[in-house]
């Protein structure tokens, strides 16, 4: 399969990339790892006239701690996330999620920015970013603005990105020391998109849950932040009744498609099961 023709650009600065995208207009697409876009181009579901490859922009790479936040450059690959000692220490749920994305070859090329900005509801990072309260730094020719991951997703492949804007960095508040976490993903085979998946981060104190945040993957047109479910758990001792109510609240906001991964009712129930399992692991990992 051979894609349609296009012109290729490889700018070395963010400024020149956004200027190019604005100038070239709707027929231009930014290229990150390319492992979502290039297959679409090969089947001609996507026929951009210009590709603006972001891979030569060094400023878009890297993982640093700035005060109480971790800042991840948008072109940081899944492989680099997995290898990061900083993330393993402070935000281990990112590694736990990244190793469940696709396969090793794709993780060398696939980027966190592409995964978050593409708007594919099957992607794993968006719900995790919502769970973690991350914010996305969007850069356009008019400057920089920040949009919360919880406000970024408008529909399948529809996001808050304006024409000419690219996602340049992701900022994640460092969770409390001793927090519990879990990402549970049901998939048909290694490398598949989720039938349903859940990200959970909690803090505990004296047997009581002091905070809980929950994200759900691939059970709606957008990733979901299960705000009410988290609120039900917060302040509880995570007794069975509270967990059952939280799971019911999470299931209630899902709206999955019936597709080759299963009927909608099944995927909703699996979202609940993934939440239970992720929570169980988060509790086991939480200290204090």
């Amino acid at each position, binding site marked *: 399969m051979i894609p349609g023709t296009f012109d290729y650009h*490889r700018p070395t600065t963010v400024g020149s990339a956004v200027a190019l995208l604005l100038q070239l207009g709707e027929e231009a697409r930014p290229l990150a790892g*390319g*492992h979502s876009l290039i297959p679409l181009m*090969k089947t001609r579901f996507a026929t951009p006239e210009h590709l603006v490859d972001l891979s030569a922009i060094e400023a878009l790479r890297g993982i640093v701690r700035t005060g109480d936040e971790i800042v991840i450059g948008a072109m940081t690959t899944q492989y680099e996330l997995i290898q990061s000692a900083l993330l393993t220490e402070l935000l281990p749920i990112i590694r736990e999620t990244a190793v469940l994305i696709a*396969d*090793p070859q*794709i993780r060398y090329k696939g980027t966190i920015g592409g995964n978050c900005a593409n708007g594919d509801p099957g992607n794993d990072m968006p719900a995790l970013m919502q769970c973690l309260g991350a914010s996305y730094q969007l850069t356009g020719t008019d400057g920089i603005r920040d949009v919360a991951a919880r406000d970024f997703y408008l529909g399948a492949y529809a996001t808050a990105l304006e024409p000419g804007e690219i996602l340049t960095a992701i900022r994640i508040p460092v969770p409390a020391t001793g927090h519990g976490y879990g990402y549970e993903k049901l998939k048909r085979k*290694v490398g598949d998109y989720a039938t349903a998946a859940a990200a959970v981060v909690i803090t505990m104190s004296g047997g009581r849950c002091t905070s809980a945040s929950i994200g759900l993957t691939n059970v709606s047109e957008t990733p979901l932040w299960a705000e009410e479910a988290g609120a039900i758990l917060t302040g509880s001792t995570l007794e069975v009744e509270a967990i059952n109510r939280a799971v019911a609240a999470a299931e209630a906001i899902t709206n999955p498609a019936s597709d080759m991964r299963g009927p909608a009712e099944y995927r909703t129930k699996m979202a609940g099961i993934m939440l239970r399992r992720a929570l169980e692991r988060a509790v086991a990992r939480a200290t204090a």
Partner: protein
Amino acid sequence: MTKSHIKVTINGKAVEALVEPRTLLIHFLREQQSLTGAHIGCDTGHCGACTVDMDEMSVKSCMTFAIQADGASITTIEGVANPDGTLSALQEGFRMMHGLQCGFCTPGMILRAHRLLQENSNPTEDEIRHGISGNLCRCTGYVNIVKAIQYAAAKINGTPYLEAAE
């Protein structure tokens, strides 16, 4: 269609070529460079038969444009054997442990296993199986592929290869 000039190093040899931006790396290697070892299996990024090593990463060359490889160093199966022409440890492992039947997936498997062993010279069976999870084989059932990689790891490390009890 305008062609672009790219410079790549393939199997240690500097290569300059003109490519259309839409030319996929696999087509560039097979059709312009006559390196037909990397195979087109699924053409959708699932099977891994097109895997080559690019700047110390295992890359699916059917999902990469040749122009993205401008400046990169690429190794294909044609560049894997020892300089004297004898089989590399991995090639020998696949031969000795019957790690192939039809052989279609083998170039991709070996290139992927090569990078895996570069990063982890003594992987467990579980690490091998996850490490090659982007490469499909429809013949072997993977058992002998895992053994082949264990054989190569032992040979590279200079330790005896002990086949796990059945």
